[in-house]
């Protein structure tokens, strides 16, 4: 497995006084779909430009295919980019756009023609070879940009927010198509996005960046379920953060005080750094992990383990109903997502009303405990 195709070694990039990347170490495996995820200005595009060769790091090294390429110009690197704006050549036909790279590499006549047509077929554009980019829709231009890059069979394909200009439906379709393409071609994809949903659905591995530093690297599932810190928890998906105080740390788990309740969190809880007794932490729970109980469902036996709450807002989402609730004791607001459930007669209809008094709970162990800061 450990076949590394791209490696950044303690890469720092500064523009004047501004530090865009701060000591980034990153190894990208051959054949994986890696996503760089972060808010705008986090440095994700800079990582891409360093790999492509448009920028050189202020400090550190860039390695590609086992060779150092830190100062090598882009035309000497076996890497291709799909640009956010597509950057198709307006004066060339679709065919000539795709043939741009192969021609420079010395492919001629029949060989060139075969290569270009095969690649156009891969992105289902074989009938558009003679059109100019200006005559194509956004989605078609996107495919040309992809074809123009993959025709060169690069070691790594860099994609800079390639789907951000497309409308919602087309974006969804292209996500699936890109993922299939990547599997079929076996080319390493490095994909940049600020859209966490896109990152989760497409990637083998996600690198979450913020303020020029890598916050967490891992599979989509581990990023979502066990975020390493408050930033990752908040950026990837929605999360409710409840302030809590650690009372006791034992082998069996944590004992905490939360909203006036004493709770036991079993071991195996997603804890990256084990807190000390007496430390203030946040307990994070995803909206879909919060369960809402109506008054009629709650038994006296159950009541002490639940948090009383008041519904502020009911938002119908089609397949789900989102509830904004408030814990009257502290005023903490939580957002929850309730799924229609045929088996639960009390909430079959999910006909909640604003102002209704309810109870909130979650299955202990489904939360994450995050240190402050």
């Amino acid at each position, binding site marked *: 497995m450990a076949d590394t195709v791209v490696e950044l070694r303690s890469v720092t990039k500064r523009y004047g006084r501004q530090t865009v990347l701060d000591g980034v170490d990153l190894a990208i495996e051959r054949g994986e779909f890696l996503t760089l995820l972060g808010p705008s200005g986090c440095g994700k595009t800079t990582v891409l430009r360093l790999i*492509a*060769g*448009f920028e050189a790091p202020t400090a550190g090294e860039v390695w590609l295919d086992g060779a150092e390429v830190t100062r090598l*110009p*882009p*035309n000497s690197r076996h*890497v*291709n*980019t799909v*640009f956010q*704006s597509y*950057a*198709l*050549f*307006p*004066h060339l036909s679709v065919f000539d756009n795709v043939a*741009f*790279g192969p021609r*420079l*590499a010395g492919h001629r006549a029949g060989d060139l023609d075969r290569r270009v047509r095969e690649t156009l077929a891969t992105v289902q554009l074989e009938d558009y070879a003679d059109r*100019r980019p*200006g*005559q194509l829709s956004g989605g078609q231009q996107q495919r040309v940009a992809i074809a*123009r*890059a993959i025709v*060169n069979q690069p070691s790594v394909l860099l994609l800079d927010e390639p789907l951000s200009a497309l409308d919602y439906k087309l974006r969804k379709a292209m996500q699936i198509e890109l993922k299939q393409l990547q599997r079929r071609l076996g080319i390493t994809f490095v994909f940049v996005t600020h859209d966490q949903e896109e990152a989760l659905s497409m990637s083998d591995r996600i690198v979450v960046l913020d303020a020029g530093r890598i916050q967490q690297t891992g599979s989509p599932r581990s990023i979502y379920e066990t975020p390493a810190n408050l930033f990752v928890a908040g950026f990837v998906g929605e999360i409710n953060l409840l302030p809590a105080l650690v009372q006791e740390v034992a082998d069996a788990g944590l004992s905490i005080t939360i909203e006036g309740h004493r709770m036991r969190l079993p071991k195996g809880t997603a804890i990256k750094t084990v807190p000390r007794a007496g430390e203030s932490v946040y307990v994070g729970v995803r909206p879909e992990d919060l369960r809402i109980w109506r008054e009629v469902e709650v038994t006296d036996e159950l009541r002490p383990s639940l948090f009383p709450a008041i519904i502020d807002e009911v938002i119908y989402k089609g397949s789900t109903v989102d509830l904004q609730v408030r814990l009257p004791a502290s005023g903490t607001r939580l957002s929850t997502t309730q799924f229609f459930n045929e088996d639960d007669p009390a909430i079959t209809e999910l006909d909640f009303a604003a102002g209704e008094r309810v109870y909130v709970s979650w299955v202990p162990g489904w939360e994450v405990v995050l240190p402050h800061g």
Partner: protein
Amino acid sequence: MAERPIVAARGEARDLRGEGGGFRRVAIGTTWFWLLLFALAPNLLVVAVSLLERGEREFVRVAFSVGSYVRLLDPLYAGVFWSSFRLAAIATIVCLLIAYPFALAVARAPLRWRPALLALVVIPFWTSSLVRTYAIVILIKTEGLLNAGLLALGLVDEPIEILYTELAVLIGFVYTELPFMVLPLYAAMEKLDWRLVEAARDLGAGAWAVLWRVLVPLTLPGIIAGSMLVFLPALGMFYVADVLGGAKELLIGNLIRDQFLSARDWPFGAAASVVVTLLMAALIGVYALSQRRLGSRGAA
């Protein structure tokens, strides 16, 4: 570049119509009247004169004749036309070679530097070009600044003869016409999407490939516009050849001027003038055609 002002003018005209058609009619009417009186009428007169005979006492004798045009077929005059075209063409190419990298550098310079850099191009217009042409004489004459410098540096043993050669005329043309090449090129490059250059480099293009496969094709309208703006005036300019070329270099402009002012053969001068005008019109026609083709490509 050539299409911009027309679009703007249309937009303004539409705005003005709302405020009252009177102003618009007067503004456009005045310009039309001016052009009819001082551009079209004299040109028609020139055409008319070219078809008359030379007079002994008057400038022309009112008798139809195509004799002047026939005389132009003389190899002597064909030679004049040829050397004029050749010199104008060389001047255009030299201007292009100098202006292209400069315009590229200005277009890539930080935004706050660009006005200053463009001002460098425009400043020479503050002085009459005739005066500037005489200034070149001072620079390149045998005991001029250029030779003094070269001698002082020991680069040459004796002064090089530039003044009153074809080279001097070429220097004069290039110097006078350079801004007309720089400005349209800059206009074309300023609009260029530089991400396309990045894309080309990403696909393996070195500096030359970027130039030939991306920059030149995309700035072609600017290249054509600049070349027209240099070539056409260079064809007609006579004082540069007079001042820098001495009497040796006979170009079309000088030929026409001489027919009117010294040889007093108005019909012949007019005929030469008409031929030059037609050639220029043909060139502009080719230009317009190429613009339309480029335009339809870009718009489609």
